[in-house]
């Protein structure tokens, strides 16, 4: 048997990305620890490449349109008019927040409002913090990441230069929400790799909103990682609002590492994007943690939204609640995979996972999969998925009061989605999202 050794090019853009990292190394003024992490990440990327549908974690999500090209960074800033329009679009009326704004993945100080932070709160951009506070960044970067997303996590580590850094000192209760805003608009397709690093001290409390808004029709690729370390007894509400352009791809990893008695509640709302993949990974590595992970996704056209969650119960007496709801129309595709690990030590775990889907067209599809791996014996774990139609009992109730069939359907569909939005504690954001929902799912 003879083997023809032909050097074939990689089926994806890994080579181009890796050479970009190598080229940057020569000019780098970054600290040595970061340079070596980037090099290691580039090696990982080179070795593993991007996932294909042969990978279990991407079986239903074909990311080849993203992986095929090495998106360049956006070199030309957006036109003033587009930027102003985008800034307005991303504004949450009535939200009185400390805001840090990024345009195409780069910090935009002129659009940000990070003055007047209360004592004990540090909010800055990553690029400046790497130089100014290298030891802090080194201690946070990668700390919360236990589960990698093939290719994309390494790509982010290799290329992320900016993002938000938020550090809240112990026992500080931050009154106003903190808003990370990512705007996308450029003359040509581009890629933005952002890394947000958050550390909340023990007994501290904060509400974080992370928004992604893109100019309609703009093609780009957002590859975002947010790492949150919540110390003992900290309380965090984290809302993620994804309103990318419908021509854009969005891949994100939200990584949580929580301390004893920490309370973490999150809502992820996905309204935009062409191919969207959101991973939420929570490591509950101390006792008595409460972790809530909720999500809503609206998918129409030929779009795809994939939500993967992993809740790793490593210690006893933690609870996790997970509710994801999706509305799929046209040829829209939804994917949900919910992993719950209950480790041997994690007795008295209380884990609940629900995925509810509404299919509005015959061509819309959903692949939903709960995945529970339980190694402890005294635990309560439930999971359920419903794919379906509107509740006939509810519909009859509305009709029995004179409300017509069409109107009743619209009301119930809207209510199905509003159920997630109503759980958001930041009132201005809740009201804003309710209004956006009304535009997408009108009831009158």
């Amino acid at each position, binding site marked *: 048997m003879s083997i023809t050794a032909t050097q074939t090019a990689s089926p994806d853009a890994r080579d181009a990305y890796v050479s970009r990292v190598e080229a940057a190394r020569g000019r780098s003024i970054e600290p040595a620890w970061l340079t070596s992490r980037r090099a290691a990440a580039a090696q990982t990327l080179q070795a593993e490449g991007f996932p294909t549908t042969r990978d279990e974690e991407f079986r239903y999500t074909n990311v080849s349109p993203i992986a095929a090209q090495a998106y360049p960074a956006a070199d030309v800033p957006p036109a003033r008019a587009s930027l102003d329009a985008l800034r307005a679009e991303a504004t949450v009326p009535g939200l009185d927040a400390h805001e840090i704004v990024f345009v195409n993945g780069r910090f935009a100080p002129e659009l940000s409002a990070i003055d007047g932070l209360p004592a004990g709160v540090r909010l800055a951009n990553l690029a400046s913090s790497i130089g100014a506070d290298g030891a802090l960044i080194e201690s946070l970067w990668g700390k919360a990441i236990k589960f990698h997303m093939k290719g994309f996590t390494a790509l982010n580590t290799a290329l992320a230069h900016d993002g938000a850094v938020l550090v809240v000192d112990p026992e500080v209760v931050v009154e106003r929400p903190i808003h990370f805003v990512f705007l996308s608009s450029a003359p040509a397709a581009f890629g933005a790799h952002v890394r947000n690093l958050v550390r909340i001290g023990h007994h501290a409390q904060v509400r974080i909103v992370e928004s992604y808004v893109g100019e309609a029709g703009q093609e780009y690729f957002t590859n975002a990682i947010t790492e949150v370390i919540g110390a003992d007894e900290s309380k965090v509400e984290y809302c993620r609002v994804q309103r990318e352009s419908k021509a854009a791809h969005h891949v994100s990893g939200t990584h949580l590492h929580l301390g004893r008695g920490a309370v973490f509640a999150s809502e992820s709302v996905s309204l935009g994007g062409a191919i969207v993949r959101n991973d939420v990974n929570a490591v509950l590595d101390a006792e008595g943690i409460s972790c809530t992970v909720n999500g809503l996704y609206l998918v129409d056209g030929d779009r795809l939204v994939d939500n993967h969650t992993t809740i790793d119960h490593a210690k006893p007496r933690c609870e996790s609640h997970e509710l994801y709801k999706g509305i799929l129309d046209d040829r829209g595709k939804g994917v949900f995979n919910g992993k719950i690990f209950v480790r041997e030590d994690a007795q008295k775990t209380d884990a609940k996972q629900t995925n509810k889907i509404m299919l509005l067209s015959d061509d819309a599809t959903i692949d939903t999969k709960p995945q529970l791996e339980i190694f402890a014996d005294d635990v309560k774990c439930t999971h359920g998925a419903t794919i379906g139609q509107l509740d006939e009992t*509810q519909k009859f109730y509305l009709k029995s*009061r*004179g*409300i017509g069939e069409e109107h009743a359907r619209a009301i119930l569909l809207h209510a199905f989605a509003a159920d997630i939005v109503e759980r958001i504690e930041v009132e201005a954001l809740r009201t804003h999202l309710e209004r956006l929902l009304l535009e997408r799912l009108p009831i009158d």
Partner: protein
Amino acid sequence: MLQITNLQARVDDKPILKGINLTVRAGEVHAIMGPNGSGKSTLAHVLAGKGGYEVTGGSVDFDGKDLLELDPEERAREGVFLAFQYPVEIPGVSNSYFLKAALNAVRKHRGESDVDAIEFIKMVKAKMKLLKMDQAFLSRSVNQGFSGGEKKRNEIFQMAVLEPRLALLDETDSGLDIDALKIVAEGVNALRSPERATVLVTHYQRLLNYIVPDFVHVLSDGKIVRSGGKELAHELEAKGYGWLEQEAVARA
């Protein structure tokens, strides 16, 4: 107002209503009593147009209209109201939105314009007072997290807002303590008028101490086996429903 003639209905292949005849005139209150499984709730459901029942015979005339031909929402707009035995929770839909949508649907049917927002709030608040309801209730989701008593009060409150011509009350007394029962009964009584008819479906005579009916009918095995005045309810209370079965056996 309501003329039910030889009404027959079944669920799957099981006949439940086996020839109901009943005439209800405007201004009257009728109580329909009977043991569990006699078809009381089925009758209320069939009149309101709930799915899952197949009408196999007979007719229902509502002020000259063939009620059975109408969709549930059309019946409601014509003035039929069903107070549910088990009111439905609808998370994500506020009570105020729900009520306004229902009221406007009824008004539109009558050729009236949408209710004015300020008028609506005024009217709603007045009716809430009648049923001793907390105003915070308006912004809450329909029936979500309500106690049994609150749900039943909400049914009567909706009825007060929509002002139907024919009210069907399906076991409205079940699950109510005596205080809640009195509030609900007061609400129903306040709505009694010469233009409006009420049909109460109930297992127990208790509710009839507070809402005094003009007529009492006893339903057994899908048929009205006895009709009389309010004293019939007392007789039933004293004797129970057992004698009905004996009569049925005797008839057979």
